[in-house]
């Protein structure tokens, strides 16, 4: 594709009278005065008018301005950008599912309910939990649901409590989800290993603390080796342990959260179970719980009765619904297909190869880039720009320069406890060739940082646009197209 091609906004190529789709002529007698007395639009003012050729060219050209997993390594830490199998796309759009109405009577949707119930069972086995709900549609939605379940369980015991403990390395959704659930967040400092400091936890864990939200492996890619003890400390004071399963990709088939003291967790199916990220969604964030929390699960719960599936709404302790209908069904179909394709060995290999690839990258780049925490890595490793800072080069420069080498940048500036962070998660699906290309590019950039930092400051050089002025975008917001007067 030619770098110079500009694609205008659709509104700028619109011309009166053009159209890209037609309908059959109305086949019922037309009532011209229908809806008389109702406020109607005169017209869809400034709505686009283009031909089908123009539509296809517009979106095809725009598509070429995106980097994507189908093109190459996408090592965004914590995002698990693995390959998305194409058969799962096809089967998620199976006519039997795509045309299925969510309000259809229960005996007409037995296939859908079988999909959901089977996936719930698989996730219970993989995570070591007693039950799952597939209603939450994203990781943050799952967190909110999980915290609501904890709150409901504590209320049933007589006291909802006030605080939720969250390590300083946590994803921003954790404190935000706890807050929407009505809790005050208390931050727990990480120790020199990058893990939860047991002494601080013990001190903070009182009988006013509802839960600890823990990500394991944490956002440094470090496994919380004291997890069993951590859970004991929280349980001893009557609290619950919530696990953010964003990094479940490091654990599948190796260890089960339910076996290490976790009471509630969410899993991002769009990470570990390969459903595509779609440029920001849709995802799916199922929540798994231990027995004590089962009565509080969102309604409806899918149950089996007399050889068929039924929807159980008669659950007086339920937190209620967290979404209309049944969650992101077609996303859940993809995850089911993925697990069926992999089987028990393949599911374990997810974690094995994800961790191998991450450690291979870490070992290959150690010395070239600073590693603040040297604790063993699981599926991702977090370097920083500390060495390159001496030459005036930041993690932003490094990231933008990677684009010139044809690789997507890692996650930047997160977790917050590593200044100038470069958080790298290769995932298990990558080839040696693509891993080595990334490593070579990073090494070349480390060299450039010393010898020619200017080329990094000016990067990227190969894209349709150069670095964009994000400050101006926020200061003078232009959030929609408007017709010039």
């Amino acid at each position, binding site marked *: 594709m030619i770098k110079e091609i500009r694609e205008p906004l659709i509104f700028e190529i619109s011309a009166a009278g053009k159209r890209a789709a037609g309908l059959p002529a109305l086949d019922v007698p037309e009532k011209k005065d229908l809806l008389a007395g109702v406020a109607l639009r005169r017209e869809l*003012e400034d709505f686009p008018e283009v031909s089908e050729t123009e539509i296809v060219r517009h979106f095809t050209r725009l598509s070429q301005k995106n980097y994507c997993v189908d093109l190459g390594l996408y090592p965004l830490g914590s995002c698990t950008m693995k390959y998305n199998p194409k058969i799962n796309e096809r089967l998620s759009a199976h006519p039997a*599912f795509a045309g299925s109405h969510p309000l259809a009577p229960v005996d007409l949707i037995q296939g859908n309910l079988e999909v959901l119930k089977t996936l719930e069972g698989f996730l219970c086995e993989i995570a070591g939990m007693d039950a799952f709900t597939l209603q939450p549609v994203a990781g943050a939605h799952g967190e909110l649901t999980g915290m609501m379940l904890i709150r409901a369980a504590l209320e049933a015991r007589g006291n909802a409590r006030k605080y939720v403990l969250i390590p300083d390395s946590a994803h921003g959704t954790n404190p935000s989800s706890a807050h929407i659930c009505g809790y005050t967040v208390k931050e727990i400092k990480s120790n020199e290993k990058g893990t939860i400091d047991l002494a601080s936890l013990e001190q903070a864990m009182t009988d006013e603390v509802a839960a600890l939200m823990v990500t394991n492996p944490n956002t440094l890619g470090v496994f919380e080796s004291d997890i069993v003890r951590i859970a004991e400390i929280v349980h001893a004071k009557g609290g619950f342990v919530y696990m953010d399963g964003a990094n479940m990709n490091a654990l599948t088939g190796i260890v089960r959260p339910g076996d290490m003291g976790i009471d509630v967790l969410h899993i991002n199916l769009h990470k570990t179970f390969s459903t595509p990220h779609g440029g920001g969604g849709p995802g799916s964030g199922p929540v798994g719980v231990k027995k004590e929390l089962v009565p509080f699960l969102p309604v409806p719960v899918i149950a089996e009765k007399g050889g068929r599936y039924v929807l159980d709404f008669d659950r007086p302790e339920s937190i209620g619904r967290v979404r209309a209908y049944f969650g992101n069904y077609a996303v859940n179909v993809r995850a089911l297909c993925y697990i069926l394709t992999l089987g028990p060995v393949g599911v374990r290999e997810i974690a094995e190869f994800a961790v191998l690839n991450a450690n291979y990258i870490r*070992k290959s780049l150690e010395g070239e880039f600073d590693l603040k925490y040297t604790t063993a890595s699981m599926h991702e490793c977090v370097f920083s720009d500390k060495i390159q800072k001496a030459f005036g080069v930041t993690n932003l420069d490094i990231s933008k320069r990677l684009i010139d080498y044809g690789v997507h940048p890692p996650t930047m500036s997160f977790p917050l406890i590593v200044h100038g962070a470069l958080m790298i998660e290769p995932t298990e699906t990558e080839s040696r060739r693509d891993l080595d290309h990334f490593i070579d590019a990073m090494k070349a950039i480390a060299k450039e940082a010393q010898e020619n930092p200017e080329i990094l400051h000016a990067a990227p050089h190969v894209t349709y646009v150069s670095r964009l002025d994000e400050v101006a975008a926020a200061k003078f917001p232009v959030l929609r197209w408007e017709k010039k007067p």
Partner: protein
Amino acid sequence: MSYLSLSDKDKKEMLARTGVGSVDELFCCIPEAVRLRRLLDLPPAQSELELVRTVDAIGRKNAGVGLLSFLGGGAYDHFIPTVVDYLSSRGEFVSPYTPYQPEVSQGTLQIIFEYQTLICQLTGLDIANASLYDGSTGTAEAVLMAQRVTGRNKVVLAGSLHPQYRAVVRTYIKNLGIEAVEVGFGPDGRIDRTELGRLVDDKTAAVVYQSPNFFGVIEEIKALSDAAHAAKAMSVAIVAEALSLGLLEAPGRLGADIVTGEGQSLGLPLSFGGPYLGFMACKKEFLRQMPGRIAGQTVDKEGRRGFVLTLSTREQHIRRERATSNICSNQALCALRATIFMETLGKQGLREMAWQNAQKAAYAADRLLAVPGVKKRFSGPVFNEFVIDLPKPWAAVDAGLREKGLLGGFGLGSAYPELKNAVLVAVTELRTKDQIDRLARALQEVLS
């Protein structure tokens, strides 16, 4: 079967470089006591062909496939032009992450910018976000937003708001000290304005109503907005059938401060309820309180136009517990489909589709009301859905219709005990005159 790309030789060499003797050693940081020392109890791996057979077999258990459906209630069976599936299935759209690196995400970002513009045009408001999960959670987010804007802790929800949307709102607000009261509906199916006047007071953050409402009836948005504004409360319009905006006046022009709802009708398959598309637009003075991602226009170093995600200081990854919402993932690929759909149908096509929906629903209502014993339940004007009262219990009628290959509608009795024998019937542009006639004949036979 798996999707790995390393050869045995690669693996051996990489382990050597990493300095460990075996893959198992990589997990030495996990306490042995909790390690899973068995294979997971999952079915054996399936090849692609086996997987297709497995899914086909499950799909056949969906006995509703092939029935002629008149189901609506927030999920609608609409025409989707081929280009929507074709373009939206490109790997460049399906497989990227959120566009945090704008230089390599201009495709997604420009599309979000176009999407935001289209939503503003449809709703008649100044700004729109890049999407929320769906109509139900969008409604909950709008309630929380109204509470932040007004600092008030009471919302008035229309009883004619989708029952599942109301349920989600109640779940969300339960732990935040926000009180929800419900206002009933009159014989026209519209909000009872006298009762509304009694319920809205100086503690009210918002009046939240759906139009067309759950009964398909078009509300008087201007009057509802005036009632809200008189108490300095916000007017929040929920649109569960986005196609209606092709024909009905934009709620923003009738006084709504926030318009949010479900965009499924705009190019998304029914898919048993998801993934769908929550859209949200508001007046610009409320920008800082809006949840979710927003794309904005800017320039690069050479002064060329480009797009970025902006105003992220509202969001959780910056503001953590003080964010406007905990939302992170949205429904970007669904918003992309909606954008292709709206731009393909365009100015005339969207209006034409909406007009055909209204005409066909009107025709269907005439035909069904001509069946002896069938009565119109509400007198208010409707878009593409309407409620009829049957002389017999719906369960029996439904069973009879299904035997004739028809899904006649959604029985309202489960959600509204007072509407025991009432049925919500939806008619889109996909239903032909013959199919509507067939429903009328079948209903007559089942009732006689």
